[in-house]
């Protein structure tokens, strides 16, 4: 299987997301065709600045996807996922905006006729991963963490407030899942840079809840979530729960080595919980 992949700005430099995604996709025979010459999706800030520019920034990828001959675009970042979907939604609803955006893209020598379906990498792996064949990790208690942007506002992938797609995935591939009540609470996102203390509190609240409910490791699906939850504990001021990517856990389930999955890059080491007898 070949998928059109949009990495977004944080993918390559995040703690093992790239390594684990590539390793897992290799193992599952999924070819990642990266969009050439991709740009920043604009994130949430751009829409506050200028609607046309924000839409065009995102829509440039829609045109590139079309050039590549794909119908779908896959991303592993919640912010990219939400931003691209927002642009797609606006373009579908507003003919005038669509016409203007096309004009902008034509100046760049790009054609936009159709809007691709935008999917999260989680959806792809939910479909591609086989059920667990071993019980190696069946006692490893994982807390699923979505962040706030995967199912909100449109609830297309799962329910908005209390989604279960990640929990079902993790338990299907052989982990023990601990239910908790912080799975869609905001980690502070990019505000962590400016409002460090406030965001530290937000992240700590999430980690404490997940630990309270008995999880030993957190599974994330977004680079910024992972970073915020990981670094919030790095000054020895948290319970020390390793914050992994779901792709890293998927890799473990497929029998890949931790080093191959970039697990050594986590600030809070996962070695201890993974090497338990």
């Amino acid at each position, binding site marked *: 299987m070949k998928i059109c992949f949009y990495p977004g700005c944080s993918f390559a430099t995040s703690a093992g997301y790239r390594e684990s995604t590539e390793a897992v996709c290799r193992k599952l025979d999924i070819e990642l065709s990266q969009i050439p010459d991709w740009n920043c999706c604009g994130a949430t800030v751009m829409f506050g600045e200028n609607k046309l520019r924000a839409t065009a920034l995102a829509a440039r990828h829609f045109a590139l996807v079309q050039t590549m001959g794909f119908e779908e675009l896959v991303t592993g970042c919640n912010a990219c996922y939400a931003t691209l979907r927002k642009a797609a939604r606006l373009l579908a609803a507003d003919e005038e905006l669509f016409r203007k955006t096309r004009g902008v893209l034509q100046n760049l020598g790009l054609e936009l006729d159709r809007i691709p379906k935008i999917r999260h990498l989680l959806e792809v792996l939910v479909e591609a991963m086989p059920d667990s064949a071993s019980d190696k990790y069946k006692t490893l208690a994982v807390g699923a963490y979505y962040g706030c942007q995967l199912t909100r506002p449109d609830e297309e992938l799962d*329910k*908005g*407030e*209390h989604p279960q797609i990640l929990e079902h995935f993790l338990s299907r591939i052989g982990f023990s899942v601990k*239910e*908790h*009540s*912080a799975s869609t*609470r905001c980690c502070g996102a990019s505000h962590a840079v400016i409002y460090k203390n406030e965001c530290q509190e937000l992240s700590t*609240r999430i980690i404490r*809840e997940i630990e*309270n409910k008995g999880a030993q490791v957190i599974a994330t699906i977004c680079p910024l979530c992972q970073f915020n939850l990981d670094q919030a504990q790095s000054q020895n001021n948290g319970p020390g729960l390793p914050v992994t990517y779901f792709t890293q856990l998927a890799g473990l389930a497929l029998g890949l080595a931790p080093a191959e999955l970039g697990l050594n890059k986590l600030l809070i080491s996962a070695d201890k919980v993974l090497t338990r007898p």
Partner: protein
Amino acid sequence: MTTRNKPRIGVYICHCGMNIAPKVDVEEVARYCQTMDHVTIARDYKFMCSNPGQDMIINDIKELGLNRVVVASCSPRMHEKTFRNAVRSAGLNPYYFQMANIREQVSWVTKDSREATEKAKSLVAAAVGRVFFHQPLDTRQVTVTKSMLVIGGGIAGMQAALTSANAGYQVYLVEREPSIGGHMAKFDKTFPTLDCAACIMTPKMVDVLQHPGITLYTWSEVEKVEGFIGNFEVTVKKKPRYVDEKKCTGCGTCMQKCPTKKILSEFNEGLSYRTAIYTPFPQAVPNVPVIDATHCRVLGQNKKCGVCAKFCETKAIDFDQKPEFVKIKAGAIITATGFQAVNPTSLEQYGYGRFPEVYTSLEFERLNNATGPTSGKVLMKNGKVPERVAIIHCVGSRDTRHKKYCSRVCCMYSMKFAHLLREKTGAEVWEFYIDIRSPGKLYEEFYNRVQEEGVRFVRGRVAEITDMVEDPGDNGRLTVIAESTLTRRTVRVPVDMVVLSVGLEPARGSEDIGRLLGLSRDGDGWFNELHAKLAPLATPINGIFLAGCCQGPKDIPDTVAQSMGAAGEAIALLAKGIVTTQAEISRIDPDLCSGCKSCIESCTYSAIRFDEARKVAVVNEALCMGCGSCAAACPSSAAGVKHFTDKQVMGEIEALLM
């Protein structure tokens, strides 16, 4: 057409106050009509339906010798009867009248005034084109069966049945559950007077059972409804109870001995268990158990058991019972199918189903009730008394994502809960509301009373209920998070128990009942009344009335008042004893009929029979509803509906397209 009968048409354009006139240029429409062939007079007037308006028509008929009348005003559903009566009182056959709807179909829905005026002209012209071909028609009178059917045995149906039976009419009350009583039987106290629901309810249930004028069918459903106003023929399906009602003494031994004990009790909202042979609650009426065939070892699992039968001294258990079908004749039908509480599971932010201490209001009613799972003690699942309780108003109501309407009862029952909690447990009670709606007699006073009792009110829709804690001391509690819109602050209240005051929706199965009776439902599924203000208990189907929540959410006082009203409507119909049948019915021309019987097959009312002697189809005028199926099915154009002849309809269309 003889000269004497040459059409002389009067056309009357109604302003309907400010409803038609500002949009449609009524004077221009009248001037236009004056130029039409056969129109003797065309006038406009402020309110045609008023006394002076009707007199204008009557005088013109008498003085100008009019023999046809057209009124252009509102919908015929509103005033066709009014104007037909006016025409009749002037000595003309009422069917020499035609109505053009220039309000609902023109002024209310057309933006441009010019366009509206043109549209009004076309519609009036069509009415003139049609009335030209009208024929005098006669109605007939048929006798009314002096009995009625009430569907639903909650407080609405019970009250309607009692009122009607007390007036001396035979009432058949059909309830699908094993007992009558409905939702009210589940309640503990009722607002605002705090009457004990059981104290005012159970004697009424016994009255229904013992009333010589009421035949009660519980564990039964309406299967088929035929006939028409005054003469309905209803088939009731008595579901097998597997207990012989005549033999059973209600001793209850079977329930004690039944080995299948772990079935969630519907009556206790799943908070306790019942056996496979059961009555929903100890005060059930009739006090005759039913066997739940799905869970019974004999009936559902093909196992040897029969313990109930072994212990039954009167040999009342009958595993071979089959459904029984009873035919009932009824002059009127009262629909009282009620509501069901909205299931809050889909409002996931409130955690119903995830957090054990989140209850629906009906569950809380049972928790409060002396016959409930805790014998009326408000206890948490761990057996402790809650110290702080949150009550969330409008759950699933007043929300465009769920039910957009107000449930009309949740403010008041929430405050009743608050009072009971304060009284029984001394717990701190927090009410989270959007607005307090207490528009009833003594309702505002009750609101004041619970405030004085120390109940805290926070104005704000709750965002979330979570088991995530800020303070480790609150571990195991739930936190209610809301914006207090009066203080503009977010409040986080740790509580032991949460009650979701859920909204109301039409009862399961009301769609099917609607289909059986031919009743229409509004966008939210409630049955439509004939007119929101002037005929709130009647339906578009003559002889069928509405009582209680099946028409829309309402509280007990309103439900009882409406039920008595519906009974009054039905009694009026039965007391008069005769109904006038409609004149617009089918007629089959014996000279054209080829005897093919296509019409007989097409008739849903079984109103056509075959005359073997003459070899032609004949319409039974008492049964015909004038639906026109036979006219459509007839290959030789022998069948037609009076007042909808080809000439009349073509005349209308031609004038419309001119």
